């Protein structure tokens, strides 16, 4: 389980402090696929990056699987991060390393013996269906393949949680779909908790069970995904749903269904 309590974070700018996160409280159950949605600048990226302290929160607590992340010393934090996988919008693969070496990297960091690394990397590459690409370099891969390597790299050390920072935002719709299917499959097979942030409604609708809406650094709505579409409460949620409805109406008009032809 992930628990976020009273989390706040602000940035110092020349014009004064800007609040990025304002007293966030969230609970995410083990095995859930939890989506955090918001418009650009709402603070969703800051929030997910606080979970593994790529960003240091100003105050509040983060607890992941019983470990208080916010209380960790630097050495403990390194330990904790080995069990928190993360995937990124721009993949962030190491261009100097082959697919195999990229995926092996977290295991080397965690100090696994070489024989285990070989076996484990092959295993996970099979899961993401890239067993034939282990000697390729990232430059030689398509966007979807790169993100599969990113996922393999994030999962290879058997994390408790997978954080997804807009992992499908740089991919085309079809590739997005296949990556989401892969995440769903992983969630089912490994009972892995996935926290993802997105600005794409499709993503939310496709794989998330629960979600939170973030607006100006605050959680304004949280609950099952269905509720978001059926009964949006917050301003952001209504705006998102309105966009969907607009296109639905357009389609009805264009296809002539509404005109009764």
């Amino acid at each position: 389980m992930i628990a976020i309590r009273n989390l706040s974070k602000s940035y110092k700018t020349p014009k004064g402090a800007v609040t990025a996160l304002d007293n966030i409280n969230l609970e995410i159950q083990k095995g859930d696929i939890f989506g955090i949605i918001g418009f650009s600048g709402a603070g969703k990226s800051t929030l997910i990056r606080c979970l593994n302290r790529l960003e240091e929160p100003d105050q509040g607590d983060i607890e992941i699987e019983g470990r208080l992340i916010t209380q960790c010393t630097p050495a403990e934090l390194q330990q904790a991060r080995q069990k928190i996988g993360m995937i990124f919008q721009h993949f962030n693969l190491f261009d100097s390393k082959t697919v195999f070496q990229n995926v092996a990297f977290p295991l080397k960091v965690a100090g696994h013996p070489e024989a285990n690394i070989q076996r484990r990397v092959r295993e996970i590459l099979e899961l993401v269906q890239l067993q034939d690409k282990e000697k390729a370099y990232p430059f030689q891969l398509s966007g979807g393949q790169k993100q599969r390597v990113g996922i393999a790299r994030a999962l290879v050390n058997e994390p408790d949680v997978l954080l997804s920072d807009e992992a499908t935002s740089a991919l085309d719709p079809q590739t997005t779909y296949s990556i989401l299917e892969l995440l769903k499959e992983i969630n089912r097979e490994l009972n892995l908790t996935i926290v993802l942030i997105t600005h794409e409604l499709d993503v939310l609708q496709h794989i998330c069970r629960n979600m939170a809406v973030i607006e100006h650094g605050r959680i304004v709505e949280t609950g099952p995904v269905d509720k978001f579409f059926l009964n949006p409460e917050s301003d952001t949620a209504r705006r998102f749903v309105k966009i969907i409805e607009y296109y639905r109406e357009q389609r009805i008009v264009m296809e002539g269904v509404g005109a009764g032809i």
Partner: protein
Amino acid sequence: MKDDLLELLWRGLLETLYMVLWSSLFALLLGMALGVVLVVTEKGGLLQAPRLHKVISTVINSVRSLPFIILIVLLLPLARFVVGTTLGPTAAIVALSIGAAPFLGRIIENSLKEVSVGKIEAARAMGANASTIIFRVMIPEALPALIRSMTIGIIGIVEFTAIAGAIGAGGLGSLAIRFGYQRFREDVLLSTVILIIVLVQVIQWTGDTVAGRIERKRTRFE
């Protein structure tokens, strides 16, 4: 052609190579250390320490603002302390190493900065410590750029070696000044110039080839 020409050139070339080789080695080690420290201590860097960064940066700028010939004179006492003399190629290596290191430090810093923040973040998110990130992520990722920077640096050292020759270091530079200029030996002057040009070409070609080979390995389509 006078019959001492070949012998003079041969000795000069050996001295130059001796100086360039050793001072490149020391300057690269020092420059690498400076470059890495500059990058990681920067604000928002891996081990940020903005004050330390400022101090090192200022020292580097100060050393770099001195004309090299003056720097050598300033470093003469150090050369005497380290190698016991202020004359000859070995004494020049002290000044060359220290004189070139700040320049190398800067261009190495620039190369390392090209490594995207995202890659470093990914490594941090995996729980990698600072030394793993520096040696297993930043340096390998920047390697082709680093090799190109080092090529520029070594060519700079060849240039510095020639200047050091003017005040007693030996080598091709000294030959060009003492024989070519002061004794009106145009054959010596011309030959040394050609040798230095060839030397620089060889260094540049080697750097380009090595960097290019690494880049091609990483980007080749199969």
